[in-house]
């Protein structure tokens, strides 16, 4: 089901753990859906004075694909300027894994979202200009979160009614 490359990242994920005093945190996913990613970034500057992702770490609860894509996204983003990091999307994340099962493609989207949310967090906390596309992405994630919470709220209610101990 998974490629060798995916399993290698899963077995030995890169850059996992928590960053102390991060400049931005991206939290995406939902426990009920089975995948949660938290991504921490530290911002620095390169020689040209541009802001770059100096350090990055992740903490992920989820399936093999969730862990592997978390590992890949941190590899890709490390050292990039914010502008370059914002260009990372699902296809760039899948490439080093060679492939992901169709049902797991959403994990690569989740990993990109986590990175973008961490950047959004950094920019908004520091009252910096937020690119329109990043704003839109942030709004979309908020909306999705509401939908998921709504769906599970209803679902959990039904389930509790049905399965009270007889």
């Amino acid at each position, binding site marked *: 089901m998974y490629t060798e490359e995916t399993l290698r990242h*899963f077995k030995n994920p890169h850059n996992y753990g928590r960053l102390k005093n991060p400049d931005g945190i991206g939290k995406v996913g939902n426990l009920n859906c089975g995948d*949660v990613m938290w991504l921490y970034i530290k911002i620095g500057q390169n020689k040209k004075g541009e802001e770059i992702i100096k350090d990055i770490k992740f903490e992920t609860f989820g399936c093999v694909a969730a862990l592997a894509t978390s590992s890949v996204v941190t590899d890709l983003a490390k050292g990039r300027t914010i502008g370059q990091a914002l260009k990372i999307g699902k296809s760039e994340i899948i490439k080093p894994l060679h492939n992901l099962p169709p049902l797991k493609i959403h994990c690569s989207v989740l990993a990109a979202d986590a990175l973008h949310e961490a950047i959004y967090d950094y920019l908004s906390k520091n009252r910096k200009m937020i690119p329109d596309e990043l704003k839109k992405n942030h709004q979309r994630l908020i909306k999705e979160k509401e939908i998921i919470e709504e769906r599970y709220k209803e679902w959990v209610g039904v389930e509790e009614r049905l399965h009270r101990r*007889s």
Partner: protein
Amino acid sequence: MKKKVKRIYLDYAATTPVDPRVMKAMQPYFTKDFGNTMSLHSFGQKAKEALEESRQEIANLINADRKEIIFTASATESNNLALKGVAAANKEKGKHIIISTIEHTCIIESAKWLEKEGFAITRLPVDQDGMINPEVVRQAIKPETILISIIHASNEIGTIQPIEEIGKICRAKGVYFHTDASQSFGKIPLDAKKMNIDLLTASSHKIYGPKGAALLYIRQGIKIEPLIHGGGQEFGLRSSTINLPAIVGFTEAAKLCREEMTKETRRLTALRDELIKNVIQTIKGVHLNGHPQKRLANNINFWFEFIEGESLVYSLNELGVAVSTGSACSSAKLEPSHVLLAIGLKPHQAHGSLRISLGRWTTGKEIEYFLKVIPLAVEKLRGISPFKKN
């Protein structure tokens, strides 16, 4: 030199290897006695004889008449035939069928299909151990109910249902009772007459027989329509050339299970309970799913807090241990198991489930190794997760 990789199979509920004794029994029917049971010549008659002997022997094991056994190719097929065949033959009497919320997917999907065809389906809830209350069954029966289908032992959580009581209620109410005994046949004594069973599904590949053979017991006098029409094999209820090697193997496997049942149940129960006790003692945030006592001797199902099941399966696979999340069939889907949701687990809890199923070649040494590596796998995944448990 590369170290030899350990390979420990603890997924016997998914499928089992064929017992060498079963292989031996099947052998002649591939090459020497390969005839078609429908042929008139000696080759065909030899095959026919072997088929009818198998039918008689397997009927004896569940206290049935040989004419009440029909062989099929899979438990899924048997279950489809039980539901759709009974529905088709009895729709004049009524169009209501009762199943439970913890049936195997093939029952759930067959019922869903019948629903589309105009049948009403009631899905009975279970308690937090996965038990069905026979009283709830009684109350669900309506005048138009034609069939009740309840899984004998859960393929996921191992809980064993009080089918004798349920059978009694069905018989008294004049409603057909089918039980899917795919996981219990060969592991728990079954008596179709004593248990008031009208239809029963059993499978070969779960009991060290080959894949491609199963049976449906149909009590004499039960009205049922075939799903597969053709040459009229299996009393006209399942046309198809008879897969004799598989049926002979299935029968041999069933016989061996019956002979060794008492001893094997005792052995596996001890291993199972040792494993459960140890895991719960050594790892924090682990819960047993299914009934603590009324469960299959070979089934263990846990849910681990802050662990995603698939990751745990792959981590254990790296360490040489083969286990599964919920059931093998549903592991390709993303939804949490319907059985775990039915016993009241929240989706995030169900995502953290792991099924360990023991079998004929499981040793104490293997359990020991499993107990050594499972804390490592859990610790590693929890270490990566944002939800640290202290």
